[in-house]
């Protein structure tokens, strides 16, 4: 087992290396000089030179790249262009609000999605199933931006059910600001996930062992919960695991529309102002998380399904 884990982690190394290479090529090479991009066209050449020197961007590209790799290994991502604060601190400051938005949403999406999929599979082809598919496809066809704009306008502004904008980081008031963004995120997510889980469960339903279970005279409820649900657990777990890196990224649009000071809005601010060190650190960190969660998913598969272990 330890051998397998080590092997998978080693396999992840080239991918992470690739991400650093792409990020570097994209920001330090393809985009031209990041400092000039940040300071704009009207900047004083002396000022550009000074800032380049400060951030080590006057060095040849190869040593800029090795510096970048060193930053990743030491988890010290240097200073932001915009605020001059250490990038690592900025990310840590912003992660709390994002997680308060994304973790409840993911839990709700998964619970509601799996629940709806179970009912839908049970009543396959009947009214409930058709309604669910219809609603899900309709919901998927509406732009995310529309959900936000309409939700914010009607639910918060017109009907006054939620706070319109803002955030206060205390246990009492946090949720009153987060309720609507969580609702929107959940609504959009459930459409996609219930459809996916339904497909997974319908496929399980056709398996030979379900026929055996029916032949043994087991009740439909027992088959749904004990057989179909427990066998669908692996795809469910892997879908949840794939979402884990996105918990950290928060939501770019929701956070900026509702004024939540999370990582999503930090990323947006950094993109808009050309704050390269922040964007680079963010991209690489999320990608490493992505690779890690993929490894964990694979290991869960091995743990949960002996057939995979044999290969």
């Amino acid at each position, binding site marked *: 087992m330890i051998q397998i884990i080590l092997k998978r982690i080693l396999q992840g190394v*080239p*991918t*992470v290396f*690739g*991400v650093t*290479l*792409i*990020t570097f090529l*994209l*920001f330090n090479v*393809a*985009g031209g000089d990041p400092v000039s991009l940040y300071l704009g066209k009207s900047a004083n050449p002396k000022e550009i030179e000074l800032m380049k020197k400060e951030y080590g961007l006057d060095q040849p590209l190869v040593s800029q790249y090795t510096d970048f790799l060193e930053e990743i290994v030491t988890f010290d991502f240097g200073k932001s262009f915009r605020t001059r604060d250490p990038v690592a601190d900025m990310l840590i400051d912003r992660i709390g609000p994002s997680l308060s938005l994304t973790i409840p949403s993911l839990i709700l999406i998964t619970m509601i999605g799996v629940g709806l999929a179970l009912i839908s599979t049970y009543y396959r082809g009947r009214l409930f199933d058709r309604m669910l598919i219809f609603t899900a*496809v*309709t919901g*998927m*066809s*509406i*732009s*995310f*931006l*529309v959900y936000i*704009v*309409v939700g914010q*306008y009607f639910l918060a*502004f017109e009907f006054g059910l939620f706070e319109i904008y803002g955030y206060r980081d205390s246990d009492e008031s946090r949720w009153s600001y987060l309720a609507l963004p969580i609702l929107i995120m959940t609504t959009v997510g459930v459409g996609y996930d219930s459809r996916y889980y339904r*497909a997974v469960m*319908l*496929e399980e339903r*056709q398996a030979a062992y379900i026929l055996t279970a029916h032949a043994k005279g087991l009740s439909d409820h027992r088959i749904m919960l004990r057989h179909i649900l427990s066998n669908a657990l692996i795809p469910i777990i892997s879908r949840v695991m794939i979402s884990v*890196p*996105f918990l950290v*990224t928060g939501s*770019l*649009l929701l956070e900026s529309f509702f004024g939540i000071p999370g990582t999503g809005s930090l*990323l*947006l601010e950094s*993109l*808009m102002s*050309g704050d390269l060190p922040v*964007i680079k650190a*963010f*991209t690489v960190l*999320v*990608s490493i998380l*992505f*690779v890690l969660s*993929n490894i964990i998913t694979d290991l869960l598969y091995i743990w949960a399904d002996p057939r995979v272990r044999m290969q």
Partner: protein
Amino acid sequence: MNIPNTTFQDLRTRVTQKFRGSPVAIFSLMVIVVYAIAAVMVMLGLVANDFDARVGEKFMSPNATSWLGTDRLGRDILSRIVYANKIAFIVGLVTATLSVLLGTLLGALSGFFGGWVDAFIVWLYSTVESIPYLLLLIAISYILGAGLSGVYLAFVLTFWVGPCRIIRGEVLKLKEAEFVIAARAMGYGPMRILFRHIVPNTLHLALVNFTLIFVAAIKSEVILSYLGLGVQGEPSWGTMIDQARAELVNGFFWQIGGATVAMFLLVLAFNIATDTLQQALDPRQTR
């Protein structure tokens, strides 16, 4: 392995049968055709020429001349929606065509030749895949600057991954098929076998991916527009929805409503068509 050499006729029969059996699917095809015709008419300059012209007062409600009212500069909203349809079609078509071509080419080479070619291409797409798609999209279009060509490139560089992974898997399977062994026995060269015998058999997957990317491109354009990285100087549904945010407070719904419904119908039609295609082409899902 006995994998049948699926001909175009087989696929066509399966697809037409599936669509014929479903009124909703036929309706979705009709919607797509109507939108496509409208897009072509805009390109030929037959309709929506006045999308940038001032036709009346600002924020007019629907009336006899402006059926969906006017926007903050007194421009006809319906004309702008119809014009934006052209932008959506061009963005969708260009992005989906190029992404599927690139993905199919790389996926086919990767699956067929194996070895270091495969290792390199798999490394490339797993790397691109591990960067969150929205982040990659925004980063590329930020660097290339706002505008249509930046949007295309950002989309293609992000979306080729999906078809590439799927076509590679299919080619891996197909290269053991009897008709491929037969073609080898006939003494055909590898390129001919790959592109004349194997790749045509993956066409159904390319088609499904094409529709998926078309929709993804239209939806992502809205987000890029909101960030100011989208289409410039011409109306797109994204810029219209974005502009309409401030108008809602004044109680003006026509711009956001119109653009939303226009986009919704097209995306819905594509989603239904994609589902129907998938069901027709993947027999496992038919039940």
